[in-house]
């Protein structure tokens, strides 16, 4: 093929090569322009000489296959794909912001910045996992934060698409990835688990927080295997001002057994956005290295001998959903509803063992009256609601790390619930709805708006109807007063 004859000014399928931006081992990156298209664009052209082993450009083949299938703000937009038989290339959006590599070199950075960045990256990861792709090379150099905000994961040369052949499968007894960030199972050649990306993101968070790599940068396979036996030094052993909750999050990501990590990137993003809800364990406070520990127990034994059965990415995400329930404690009827909602939630959690439950209640605030923080008895309404939420969840008998509680003030409850669900990548909303009535149909209810506008599944729970007149009265009460979410 003809990639070596590329020079500035040459036109390929309407794209004019402007400037060679980067030459790597595998491909050249050109800044290109196209008449009538003002978007900044990059063309990636692999090096492939006559008779070369095609596996030398397997990374390009994989990217060629996967990138066109990915959409959304968390990937570079794929704009054109060259015919492999003529000249293989990919034209993609040129992201002008630098990668996180520069930022990582300035580490340690402040914990607030770590979680701000970490939540963005975890959100991006959740998005590509939902699109059936495991990245397998999450590291600062492959992360760019868009000026508009979202994190972008670039370079899909080692990635795997759940619905396509894995072109690296035949080499799977070799560790494939970047040594410093690779998950233990990746070191062992396993390319089936999206939680490998969560481990790598944990290594990135560790680096940003401490300025050091959790397992160094080994070059030998034996060196890479160290992470199977040795705990990384706790971040607080390096920098004592690292908050325990951040250490808890990072070390949880870096668990050797994927079952002990966050089960989805969405759950990790949620933890990073709600540090106050992180359940601290012994490791949160750890300030010295535990030294040699049996990190692996039976896990390594079994995984090293028996190939892990391949679980589809979507199945993994489905098993560990974020379930959110929006509860209304504004009056007695609303409270009866919360019992029905709890039954539904219990049923859902029984099938999804790794689910995380987010309990939400909305304090409806008025823009006019600002003194509503205290009720008539002078008690703090916010705290009252929080207590009510916790009380409600007690019967579900969930372990602490499975559940979190949030009281949110909002003028528009439906919008607040929708925003919260979207921002926190909630997979399923469970909420109650009151009966229908003329007035309600006219005004529209919170639940019907959630059902029509939420981008995730919504389960609406109803109570048996007890008469139209009473319904109408309650509707009136709910819509014009209090903090109901219905």
């Amino acid at each position, binding site marked *: 093929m003809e990639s070596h004859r590329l020079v500035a000014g040459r036109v390929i399928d309407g794209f004019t090569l402007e400037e060679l931006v980067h030459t790597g081992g595998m491909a050249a990156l050109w800044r290109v322009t196209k008449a009538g298209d003002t978007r900044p664009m990059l063309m990636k052209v692999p090096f492939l000489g006559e008779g070369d082993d095609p596996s030398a450009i397997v990374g390009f083949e994989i990217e060629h296959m996967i990138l066109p299938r990915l959409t959304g703000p968390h990937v570079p937009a794929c704009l054109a794909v060259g015919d*492999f038989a003529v000249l293989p290339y990919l034209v993609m959006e040129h992201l002008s912001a630098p990668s996180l590599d520069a930022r990582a070199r300035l580490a340690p950075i402040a914990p607030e910045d770590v979680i701000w960045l970490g939540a963005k990256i975890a959100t991006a990861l959740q998005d590509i996992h939902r699109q059936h792709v495991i990245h397998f090379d999450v590291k600062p150099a492959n992360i760019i934060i868009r000026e508009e905000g979202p994190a972008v994961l670039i370079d899909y040369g080692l990635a795997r698409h759940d619905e396509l*052949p894995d072109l690296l*499968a*035949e080499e799977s007894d070799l560790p494939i990835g970047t040594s410093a960030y690779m998950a233990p199972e990746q070191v062992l050649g396993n390319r089936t688990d999206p939680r490998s990306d969560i481990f790598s993101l944990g290594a990135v968070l560790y680096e940003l927080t401490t300025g050091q790599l959790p397992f160094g940068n080994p070059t030998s396979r034996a060196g890479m295997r160290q992470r199977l036996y040795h705990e990384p030094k706790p971040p607080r052993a390096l920098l004592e001002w690292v908050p325990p909750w951040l250490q808890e999050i990072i070390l949880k990501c870096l668990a050797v057994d994927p079952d002990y990590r966050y089960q989805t990137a969405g759950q990790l993003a949620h933890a990073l956005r709600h540090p106050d809800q992180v359940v601290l364990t012994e490791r949160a406070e750890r300030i010295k290295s535990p030294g040699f520990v049996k990190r692996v127990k039976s896990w390594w034994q079994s995984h090293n001998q028996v190939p892990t059965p391949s679980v589809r990415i979507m199945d993994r995400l489905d098993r560990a959903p974020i379930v959110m329930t929006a509860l209304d404690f504004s009056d007695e009827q609303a409270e009866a509803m919360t019992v029905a909602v709890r039954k539904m939630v219990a049923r859902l959690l029984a099938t999804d063992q790794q689910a995380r439950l987010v309990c939400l209640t909305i304090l409806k605030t008025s823009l006019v009256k600002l003194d509503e923080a205290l009720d008539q008895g002078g008690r703090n309404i916010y705290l009252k609601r929080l207590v009510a939420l916790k009380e409600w969840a007690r019967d579900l008998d969930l372990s602490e790390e499975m559940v979190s509680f949030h009281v949110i003030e909002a003028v528009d409850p439906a919008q607040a619930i929708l925003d919260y669900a979207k921002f926190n990548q909630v997979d399923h909303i469970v909420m109650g709805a009151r009966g229908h009535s003329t007035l309600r149909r006219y005004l529209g209810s919170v639940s019907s708006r959630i059902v029509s506008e939420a981008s995730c599944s919504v389960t609406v729970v109803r109570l048996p109807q007890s008469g139209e007149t009473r319904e109408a009265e309650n509707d009136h009460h709910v819509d014009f007063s209090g903090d109901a979410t219905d």
Partner: protein
Amino acid sequence: MRIAFFADIHANQEAFEVCLQDAQARGHDHKVVLGDIIGYGPDPLWCTQTVMALQQEGALVLRGNHDAALKEGTDQMNEAARSALDWTHHQLSDTEKNYLTSLPLQHRDEERLYVHANAWAPALWDYINGPREAERSMRLTDARLTFCGHTHVPKLYFMTSQRPAAEFTPLAGKPVPLSPLRHYLIVVGSVGQPRDAVSAAAWGLYDTVKRDYVQYRVTYDIETTAKKIRAAHLPERLAKRLFVGG
């Protein structure tokens, strides 16, 4: 060009009909029947006559081991297959039998090889049950793409010349892009007797321009086929397995 593949029809009229309809609806330019038109199922005459008509319209039709066994005998076959073939003998006239037993074993079309069982010895009917056999087959043909049937289990094997083969199970309705840098061996699933624990009939579509392969699955009226199998007093197992794809 879009090429529709049908393998291991096995005298299952209901399954073959829905696959042909599905292929018609999705559009294609050429049909390839990868052998085993008869055997196991209750409608050998209809299936053979349909295939003969398709060939008149330009389809390519290959011979499978069950087709060949009409002449060569059933020594290598299991009990159920043998009794079904004995029965099939009485359902077909010499015209159909001559047609089936004289079909070609393989066909080469540009970079593609079509064959019922494998490329190394098409008439010996060895099975491709994993990457090792797939690699053997791929190394013994200079065709870059091999399309075959025989195992009734849809698979896609791929390799470069310097590496061993790897395996992938294509998902129904999800196009798999085929890299021009690799060799592929594609086992098209079975129309009339799937064995991958999915009861729906399978057929495949390869697009030579987009260079992708899609495996489709179509549900069909298994009850009717099973009734016909029982009415013909064919082994009960041949009816039962259709429901479980095994």
